[in-house]
């Protein structure tokens, strides 16, 4: 069975040295976010994930979820783990204290989420969706609904779902047909079928709150006619306890490649009672508040899986002996050298490491911006942070999940046949990672969001703001002679990003396919630059602290600098190829007759 070791040491570096996480405590509402508390929470949250959540991962994959006459049984141990997660306060760590939350920053929540996802993605889907409903109601529901429902989600008594997808409406949500008919008392009756609904039915909580996209009778067609509704499995009675069973039923669950402990449900709504959340016909936009958070969450899933696969691959490579090192025997007393001595094994492990540690820094940077966006007293600072988060959301979602699929595959490769068979759990990480590239909007949809929406917005305002920050970091790094080569490589990649953006802006106006054909390459370039930004910063801080002394030991700083070097010399050059393919234009894919397929 694989083991999960929480990346607490790396987070200590990120929280204390790479970013000024201590400064969060001075933002209004974050008085409890004392750095000591955050560091202890990392440590203990990590241990909780290691000891309580991770051991359920492999058995949960083997057992899967079971559907019986409309009920769903989750794998053994999930219900108790959910209760433990909620009771300890991990579930509600960033929720508003007015509803029973802990009011701690997103910077901590992202770190804990990475660990939960790494420990057991299938399990962590359930609290993730419950928090999605929390966010949806928190942002859009009226006081009455909030006071009734939020404390129960926060306490872990009730969970939730996001019901968007229908059989014929996946990416194109404008096609949604589920209908909502208003009742005289202000509630509505919903009829229709949703598919692929994660956590749609389960035995973890006494009630499940569905946030459902549906159409009111007077709705205009397309995406501007969709409204958001809250449909509880059990309608709360006068005391707020689960009352009458609502007419929403789980017809079946899917059998699937990965996240087998997470129930993926077909849900039938048969005149089920629901309440409008937010304004009529503005449901898709409302759903986007939680979708954006969920997209970042999916990125963290990728990060978590890549990280846990990396940890297990290294542990194996340290022990497994095969062949002799090409530069001469390393362990003469043994019959073979450890595979860790083979250059190609290191190349793979370093890819994983540079991806994971770079992505983790970028996730933390972004979470920090979310905290600034939510809490900073100065509205112009909040706006800038909001731009950065909006820009980074599709990048984190797609780049992290694409990277996770590569990384978890390297993980399998490192173990050879032992990676492919079940026993070591490495193949599960690949299967679990695959969905991240699909749900919450496929990675192509992310690329289009970045290239077609975020870039043009305000004439490129978001990108300009981001590039200013990146260039400032570059200028700082250029002052350290040890970092000259890295800074040089990074500067070239930043220029490629700008050229890619320019290509999209000029070619895309005349022909949308030019954007469509370039978007995925552009997102990849963006991802490499954004992670590169973090590597330059990590290298700079490590290079300084190695001399001035810091809170980590020398070996830690040395390893950071060496991993940075790998990133700049072996990963960042991908941007060169990506720019070439991006610039090749849409002709090579579009000039292909429909009947030639």
């Amino acid at each position, binding site marked *: 069975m694989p083991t999960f070791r929480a990346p607490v040491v790396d987070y200590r570096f990120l929280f204390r040295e790479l970013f000024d996480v201590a400064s969060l405590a001075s933002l209004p509402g974050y008085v*409890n976010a004392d750095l000591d508390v955050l560091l*202890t929470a990392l440590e203990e949250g990590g241990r909780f994930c290691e000891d309580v959540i991770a051991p359920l991962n492999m058995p949960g994959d083997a057992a899967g979820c079971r559907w019986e006459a409309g009920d769903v049984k989750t794998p053994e141990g999930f219900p108790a783990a959910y209760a433990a997660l909620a009771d300890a306060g991990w579930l509600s760590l960033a929720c508003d204290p007015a509803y029973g939350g*802990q009011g*701690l920053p997103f910077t901590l929540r992202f770190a804990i989420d990475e660990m939960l996802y790494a420990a057991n993605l299938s399990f962590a889907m359930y609290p993730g969706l419950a928090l999605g409903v929390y966010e949806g109601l928190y942002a859009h529901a009226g006081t009455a609904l909030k006071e009734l429902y939020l404390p129960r989600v926060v306490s872990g008594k009730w969970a939730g779902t996001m019901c968007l997808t229908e059989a014929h409406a996946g990416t194109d949500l404008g096609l949604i047909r589920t209908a909502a008919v208003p009742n005289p008392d202000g509630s509505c009756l919903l009829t229709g079928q949703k598919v692929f609904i994660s956590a749609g039915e389960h035995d973890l909580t006494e009630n499940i709150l569905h946030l459902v996209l549906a159409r009111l009778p007077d709705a205009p067609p397309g995406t501007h006619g969709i409204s958001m509704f809250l449909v509880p499995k059990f309608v709360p009675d006068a005391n707020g306890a689960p009352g009458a069973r609502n007419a929403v039923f789980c017809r079946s669950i899917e059998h699937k490649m990965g996240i087998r402990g997470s129930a993926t449900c077909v849900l039938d709504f048969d005149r089920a009672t629901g309440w409008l959340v937010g304004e009529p016909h503005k449901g898709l936009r409302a759903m986007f508040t939680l979708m954006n958070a969920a997209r970042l969450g999916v990125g963290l899933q990728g990060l978590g899986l890549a990280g846990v696969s990396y940890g297990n691959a290294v542990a194996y490579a340290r022990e497994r002996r095969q062949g002799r090192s090409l530069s001469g025997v390393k362990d003469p007393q043994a019959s073979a050298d450890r595979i860790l001595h083979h250059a190609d094994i290191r190349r793979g492990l370093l890819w994983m490491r540079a991806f994971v540690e770079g992505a983790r820094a970028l996730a933390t940077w972004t979470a920090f911006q979310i905290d600034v966006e939510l809490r900073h007293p100065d509205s112009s600072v909040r706006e800038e942070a909001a731009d950065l988060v909006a820009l980074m959301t599709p990048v984190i979602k797609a780049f992290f999940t694409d990277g996770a699929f590569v990384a978890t595959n390297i993980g399998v490769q490192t173990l050879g046949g032992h990676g492919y068979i079940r026993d070591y759990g490495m193949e599960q990480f690949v299967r679990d990672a695959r969905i991240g590239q699909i749900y919450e909007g496929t990675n192509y949809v992310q690329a289009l969001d970045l290239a077609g929406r975020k870039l043009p917005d305000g004439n490129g305002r978001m990108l300009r703001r981001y590039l200013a920050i990146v260039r400032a970091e570059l200028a700082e790094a250029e002052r350290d002679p040890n970092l000259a080569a890295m800074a040089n490589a990074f500067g070239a990649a930043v220029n490629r990003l700008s050229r890619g953006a320019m290509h999209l802006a000029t070619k895309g106006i005349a022909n949308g396919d030019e954007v469509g054909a370039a978007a995925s390459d552009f997102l990849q370039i963006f991802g490499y630059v954004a992670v590169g930004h973090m590597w330059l910063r990590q290298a700079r801080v490590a290079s300084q602290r190695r001399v001035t002394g810091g809170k980590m*030991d020398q*070996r830690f700083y040395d390893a950071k600098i060496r991993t940075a070097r790998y990133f700049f010399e072996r990963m960042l050059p991908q941007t060169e190829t990506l720019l070439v393919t991006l610039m090749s234009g849409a002709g090579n894919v579009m000039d292909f007759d429909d009947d030639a397929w």
Partner: protein
Amino acid sequence: MRIAVCIKRVPDMDVKFRIAGHAKGVDETGLKYDMADFDGYAVEAALQMMEKEGAGEVVVVSLGPDAVQETLRKALSMGATSAIQLKCDEVPFDGFAVASALASELGGATYDLIMFGRMSTDNANGVVGPMVAELLGLPVVTACSKLEIVAGRGTARRELEGGAEFVAFDLPAVVTIDEGIARPRYPSLKGIMAAKKKPLATKPANLPEPRLVIARMDLPPERKAGRIVGEGAAAVPELVRLLQQEAKVLA
């Protein structure tokens, strides 16, 4: 009931240790630290007694440099009421020195029960608890796997080879705790936040000159790689020959 629990900060045992250059201790770089295992059971047992009673106090005490505050905070986040650090630059190896410093702190206050882990997970001497009892003139029960206190009297269960014994004693007393008494709880996030506001006092440790010091530390020698003689029944004659002639374990 007022309970004191003495806890030690020790390195996480799951790692490969290196010996430091001076050969008198382990190289601390890269080590992770936590409360010693048996001390965790003791804290848990104390908290459960307090919770059962619905009143009382659990004071956690640790001797050592400021880093032990982290361990004390952990106990506070599990639910202990207050903490005391007996400050010194490093924890002496000599259990009597440690016991003397603890006794001088604990003797001045009125505790119904003073608890320890059966032994620390790093040095495994298991002497500090009994020595504190001796210094304070209190009864001591070691390695308890169950503990019950009713009206000023305690009963403790001790595991023996193939059986158990039950020891009755009067309070105040010292007990040392074995595993199996109660799984230590995970500090909850709520507990961690609450711990920040609980009192943690720092006092100088009243340490006598140590009478024991570590002269030298060595890692066990690396085991030589094994040799595969052959497979199945065919290998037996050669194996017997080697055991007789090379290893000389068979006559």
